[in-house]
């Protein structure tokens, strides 16, 4: 034995270094522990309420919401974004804060432009953004679902016709329409607006069967699933949570094609990996962005696909793992929410680098709604 050790001393040291290096690198960078903080139904409900309360407290008399807040300086952010406004309205309708969301709706109604058979949200000096209008459609349909009130059905159809008018023959969706020229802005496609348009039209198809909205919805998602990244020069295929929502809605409205099912499965894998990665790296140097918006969109996509997997037998094998990931992401979000701060501009919000923005709360709340459903 002693002679063996003497003869192979160098090799043994090399092997020891190799094994320790492999284990250390794997543990530190590739497979750290996956930590999912607890997410009980009561804690999730409290998180949703606190996040929604932050949005409502920040609402101005004109119906707009506080755009952002710097915790360290106590400064509120200037600027505004119509897509985020509509997204926040949607989150508030979904959690029953109808009064505040309706006040937000009043602001959008004062900023509509109408042409021919369509209308679009486009404040003075801004182009009409398909993404903002798609989320406005979604918000109004969720309002209808929550209240049973069909009051805005006419408006929602006009907004949807605007989205349809921006959709090209191959399923690509032009992001902007210019009030100045009275025409769609050619060659401009949004990173998120195509998925948002798909979601809006798929939800229209589910809410108003027989009106034909599913035709354009299928066309857009086929484009997203098969051609978008090459056509629009994306360096990689994004984890499109809006497309995940859209697939869920389209499945309920008209069923999914094999291409769409494959895309749903691909998205489920992507979101599942993102949740696992966040559970391994949250709060550490290798973490992705840890804003409420970034984490929330991962949770939204996961939750939407879990609901889709519950509804579609061909995806049944994804139900349990997606539910597990949805609950895990909810726990991560709750762990990062600011609770119990004295300053009401901090309380209930999700900060990243000392800053929070209205879409942090919007996406985090929507993700927690998904967690709440997965816990049932």
């Amino acid at each position, binding site marked *: 034995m002693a002679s*063996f050790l003497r*003869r*192979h001393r160098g*090799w*043994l040291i*090399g*092997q020891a270094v*190799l*094994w320790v290096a*492999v284990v250390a690198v*794997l*543990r530190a960078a*590739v*497979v750290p*522990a*996956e*930590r999912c903080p607890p997410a009980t139904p009561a804690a999730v409900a409290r998180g949703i309420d606190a996040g929604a309360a932050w949005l409502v407290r920040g609402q101005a008399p004109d119906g707009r919401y506080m755009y952002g807040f710097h915790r360290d300086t106590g400064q509120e952010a200037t600027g505004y974004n119509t897509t985020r406004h509509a997204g926040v309205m949607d989150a508030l309708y979904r959690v029953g804060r109808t009064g505040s969301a309706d006040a937000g709706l009043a602001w959008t109604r004062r900023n509509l432009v109408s042409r021919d058979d369509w209308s679009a949200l486009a404040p003075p000096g801004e182009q009409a953004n398909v993404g903002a209008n798609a989320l406005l459609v979604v918000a109004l349909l969720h309002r209808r679902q929550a209240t049973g009130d069909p009051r805005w059905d006419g408006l929602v159809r006009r907004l949807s016709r605007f989205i349809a008018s921006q959709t090209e023959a191959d399923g690509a969706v032009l992001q902007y329409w210019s009030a100045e020229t009275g025409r769609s802005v050619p060659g401009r496609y949004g990173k998120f607006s195509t998925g948002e348009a798909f979601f809006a039209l798929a939800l229209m198809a589910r809410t108003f069967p027989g009106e034909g909205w599913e035709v354009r919805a299928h066309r857009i998602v086929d484009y997203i699933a098969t051609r978008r990244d090459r056509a629009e020069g994306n360096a990689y295929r994004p984890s499109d949570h809006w497309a995940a929502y859209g697939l869920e809605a389209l499945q309920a409205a008209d069923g999914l094609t094999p291409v769409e099912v494959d895309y749903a499965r*691909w998205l*489920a*894998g*992507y*979101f*599942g*990996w993102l949740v*696992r990665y966040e559970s*391994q790296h949250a709060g550490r140097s290798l973490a992705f962005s840890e804003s409420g918006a970034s984490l929330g969109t991962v949770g939204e996509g996961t939750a939407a696909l879990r609901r889709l997997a519950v509804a579609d037998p061909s995806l049944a094998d*994804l139900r349990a*793992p*997606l539910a597990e*990931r949805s609950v895990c992401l909810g726990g991560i979000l709750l762990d990062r929410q600011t609770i119990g701060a004295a300053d009401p501009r901090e309380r209930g919000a999700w900060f990243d680098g000392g800053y929070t923005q209205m879409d942090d709360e919007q996406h985090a709340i929507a993700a927690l709604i998904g967690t709440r459903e997965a816990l049932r």
Partner: protein
Amino acid sequence: MTFGLMLAGFLGATNAGRVALGLGLGRTIPPAAAPPTGALAGLRPAGLREWRADRRTLGVVLAAGAALILAGVLLADPLLDALDISPESFRIGAGIVLAAMGAATLVRPRPGGPAGALLVTPELACMAIAASADEGVGPALGAAAIALAVVAGLALLPRLAPAGRAAPFLAALQVVVGVALVVSGVRDV
């Protein structure tokens, strides 16, 4: 992880060609020196002694490899549970190790160190854990047994001079399987 991918992973991680090189097997026996008949045809008396010694070493190699595989396969679930790692995430880690070590073998196919430890490698340990965590003990051991049989078969054919030439091909296979495991780990929920 399909059985085919698992088998390919074990074939790469056990790399029969590398083992043959490490054992110094695959030597060409001059045909003129070979006795005409017999089970050990082709071996001169000195070669016969050497071949028997090689067989003993090969037994040690296979036993050590089998022990490592058995430990990895049987301990996979409790180990990953204790470390809070999901099988899907570990698959990514195993894939990176397989790809990196396979690339190293491509650069330097001839192993160093004592012959008995030829199969005591990080990539084989990772492959055993990942396969068992994904597919269970039975299929993982089945695939590993086939790979070990290939190692034994290639090493026991002393006339097979090109045995060592399989090393880079199996290393390349290991790299491909490593990349496939990473992709599969990322794409899985």
